């Protein structure tokens, strides 16, 4: 690693005071972005989307770390991140109440949609099942399966 790269990484570690596991993730991702995009490490870290987070005085250390990691993950896995975002948007479009939760596995591994129903009564559950029956006919839900099935990568 070049001197400017080491200096940029050191500055990030000093600012975010991260533990070893976070540090490893971040270094791996930065090195892989660097190799893929032909960019120097310090060029990646000085991108606006990263530097704005790490220098934002309104954010605490753990929030900064979380957001920097999210941003680096998005840069490292752009299509995965976009797909996850598309799926989350479709879930939002369904406007689900708190009794029905729809989620996908981390990293989309498993290819399944998970549905959770919460009910304290039989009539309540029956209502949720009917609502679910209507939901499965809606376009955003069908689109989620297209995303999971590799048709829209």
């Amino acid at each position, binding site marked *: 690693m070049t001197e400017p790269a080491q200096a940029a990484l050191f500055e990030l570690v000093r600012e975010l005071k991260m533990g070893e596991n976070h540090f490893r993730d971040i270094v791996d991702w930065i090195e*892989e*972005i660097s*190799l*893929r995009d032909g960019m120097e490490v310090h060029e990646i870290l000085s991108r606006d989307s990263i530097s704005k987070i790490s220098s934002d005085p309104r954010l605490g250390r753990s929030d900064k770390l979380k957001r920097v990691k999210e941003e680096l993950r998005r840069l*490292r*896995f*752009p*299509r*995965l991140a976009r*797909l996850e975002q598309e799926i989350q948007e479709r879930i939002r479009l369904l406007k689900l109440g708190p009794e029905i939760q729809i989620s996908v596995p981390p*990293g*989309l*591994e*498993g*290819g*399944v949609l998970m549905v959770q129903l919460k009910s304290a009564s039989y009539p309540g559950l029956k209502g949720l099942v009917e609502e679910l029956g209507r939901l499965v006919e809606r376009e955003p839900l069908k689109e989620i399966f297209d*995303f*999971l*099935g*590799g*048709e*829209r*990568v």
Partner: protein
Amino acid sequence: MEPFLPQEVIVERGSEESPIFRNLRKAFPQVPFTLVERPEWAAEAQGGPVDSMSRGKRRLWLTRHRGDFLKKCPGSEGQVCCNYFVVNFASNCPMDCSYCYLQDYLADNPALKVFSNVDDLIAEADRLLSRHRKFLFRIGTGEITDSLALEPYIGFCSEVIPFFAEQPNCLLELKTKSDRVESLLGFDPKGRVVVSWSMNPQRVIEKDEHQTASFDERLGAAYRCQEAGYKVGFHFDPMVEYPGWEEDYREMVEKIFAVIDSRRIAWLSMGVLRQTPGLKRIMRERFPSTQLLSGEQVLCPDGKMRYFQPLRVGMYRKMLGWIRRASPTVFVYLCMESREVWEQVFGFAPSCEKELGNQLTGVLSF
């Protein structure tokens, strides 16, 4: 493909009686041979910490195999398995693919081991196959070495093909990235030997499959084997995703089917690039400029990193489409993938490993 030339050959005393030794002597008259009593000690003493993998590939160690030759393929935890047996006639490989799992699996291996007691291997296979005549076995030799890369020098296949060709309940698979098929062409495999190639576009071969045969050399070797009466197979594994991969892989499939008679193809398999985190660290050290690790890979439940599922399912479906366009009926399966991925790609998953194994041994009847 470049010829293989070891720097030295270490021979365990007793192995000098074997046909493998005689073949090696003939193949490498200029290489020093050292006869030793205790090969483990001798080879380890010469090993070193600096890229011992690369050094080990140039030191050939002829020794007796202790223990069983035949083992059930371990597969990968939680993945659909094809019920395969492996027989190890050698350990380590003269080729040097960037992604090869032997870099981790055999990390401390000081040499490229070749086993001299082929007669024991044949006797063990004979016991297994004759005791279970009603079961059909698929046995492969390419798990921890390439099946044919060493063939011109050791002549292993010439020793075993006549035996396996006579077995009514077994298919022997020789899996390779080489074009070293000359010694096979004189035998009649009687429909019981499949020679299969791990195939990738030339771009991937040049960047990451070092010391292997080119795509054209592999295809030419497959054609020669087909003409000599062998069934052939192709493993599109590991499939690598990069800008322009679709065009390269589609063209590769078209070239294969333009040359090979699809009725002589026993099977095709597909699997994407995968590695454990441990292997990833080794790949970075040994091949720092490889682009393989820049793909969008995530950690899967079996501990291996693969392209995230929708991405690799999309890759498999595209490949399957190109294959089906060339041959609607050729048998295609996935290697080390989950039931969910099978269902997304094919619309079904084998109910158990026996079902997939039976479908694969079904080629015994064609």
